[in-house]
């Protein structure tokens, strides 16, 4: 299994298209950081305009932690496409290249084969997120410095003390990894049904976009099905940035307002991952390789 995993990782990272995702992330983050360096204060004033009419803020509002939050909100909507590029290509890509039948005539079980492939795409997803974390968090901290993190929720403001932010980002990135793995698992599952990669990639993105729209809109009909859509839970990395307050409405350092939501969302995403990968295995084991 380890040998298989090595081979799969080797194949992924020898392909030029793998690096497109890393380059795209670098360019995107770089452009946004550049923009914020130049006009970040204007952006903050625009976003916080409502509150700034009544309150004055003293301190470095635009700091690395806030910039990372802004970047994550943007990136975690678009990164699924980059994940799908690899994950949805795992089986269909092999079929398209014709190497699937060669691989499956080797003394490896189909289960091992699939597990190795999914694990490899999970490692790719992890590495992509590490890269995002490096650029969005560490580079932003370097460029913009650090201070308390003030973010706007839907209708309230949260201020997190500077010493209470970093661990939240560790948690948020961990949760984002689960979200992206569920996208990878979906792409992996859809990859089973095609012999070229375009179909599964487009299908994965279509599902994500469609489900996200259903998850976002506050229409009573949609609200009934939202609990059943995994995209509803994918955004709950933000719960790491919502602390509890004590009786005096002061933030309790190191706390989370809704840890139950985080745990529930994480479990649901894990279930989706296991479900998609499990279904892929069941179907693939029975599949006739005719390509």
């Amino acid at each position, binding site marked *: 299994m380890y040998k298989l995993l090595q081979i799969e990782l080797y194949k992924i990272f020898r392909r030029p298209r793998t690096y497109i995702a890393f380059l795209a992330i670098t360019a995107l983050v770089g452009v946004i950081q550049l923009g914020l360096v130049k006009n970040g204060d204007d952006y903050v004033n625009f*976003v*916080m305009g*409502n*509150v700034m*009419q*009544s*309150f*004055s*803020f*003293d*301190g*470095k*509002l635009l700091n690395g932690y806030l910039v990372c939050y802004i970047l994550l*909100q943007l990136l975690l*909507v678009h990164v699924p496409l980059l994940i799908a590029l690899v994950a949805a290509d795992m089986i269909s890509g092999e079929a398209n290249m014709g190497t699937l039948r060669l691989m499956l005539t080797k003394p490896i079980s189909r289960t091992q084969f699939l597990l190795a492939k999914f694990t490899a795409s999970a490692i790719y997803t992890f590495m992509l997120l590490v890269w995002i974390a490096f650029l969005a968090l560490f580079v932003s901290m370097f460029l913009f410095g650090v*201070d*308390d993190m*003030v973010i*706007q*929720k*839907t*209708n*309230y*403001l*949260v*201020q*997190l*003390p*500077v010493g*209470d932010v970093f661990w939240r980002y560790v948690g948020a990135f961990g949760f984002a990894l689960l979200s992206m793995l569920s996208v990878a698992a979906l792409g992996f599952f859809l990859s089973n049904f095609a012999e070229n990669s375009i179909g599964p990639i487009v299908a994965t993105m279509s599902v994500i976009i469609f489900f996200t729209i259903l*998850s*976002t809109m*506050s229409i009573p009909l949609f609200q009934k099905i*939202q609990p059943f859509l995994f995209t*509803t839970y994918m*955004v709950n990395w*933000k719960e790491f940035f*919502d*602390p509890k*307050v004590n009786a*005096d*409405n*002061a*933030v309790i*350092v190191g706390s989370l307002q809704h840890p139950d939501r985080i745990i529930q969302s994480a479990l649901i995403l894990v279930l989706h991952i296991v479900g998609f990968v499990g279904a892929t295995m069941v179907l693939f084991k029975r599949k006739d390789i005719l390509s």
Partner: protein
Amino acid sequence: MKRLSIVLVAFIGFQSFAFSQDMTALVNKVKAKLDKVNDYVAEGSMKTDVAFIKAPVGRVKVYFKKPNHFKLKRDGGISILPKGGVTVNMSTLVAGNDFVALSSGDAVINGTKVKVVKLIPTTDNSDVVLSTLYIDETNLLILKASTTTKENGSFEIEMSYGKFISYALPDKVIFSFNTKDYKMPKGVALEFEDEEKLTDAEKIKRKKGRVQINYSNYTINKGLDDNVFK
């Protein structure tokens, strides 16, 4: 009859004058006590208690220099303060002579009998429209002040005294303001609203907000550079 009316008006006017003179005298006595402090640097903790703001308790440093230089700086981190209000301190409230001080009776605050004095600015360019001071006559301390301003609405300041009572410097200041007309934060993120939050949002608007500063230490009359207030 005409003479009686004149006498009566003069008497009432004299009485009023006597009373207002009394309130001005009281205010001046309070001012004199406050004037003992040329400058100070205070350390303490500050807590912003607004229903739609979750903020931590933070360390603050407060700088004051006569006649009305006042600055509140968060000692590390970001401070979120209602506009205009928390910069007001007692010295700035009673500074100058451009006001009329009128008695508004007596009251009891935290078991202490106080005189209620209304300060009405006599100049048009003052931001303050009306201030009501609750003065502990015995100790010459302002225990509470309610102020209405043109630009920044109305607010209340409550003070408790302890170690630095001789300088009329409070241990605790609670600054209260009305958030009814404050604009709510509007997030642009992908937040999925639920009914519970929407209902709370309405309730939030009706509440008041508070900023509480607990002073742990004052460094008084040691000299302060004007650059601190820039």
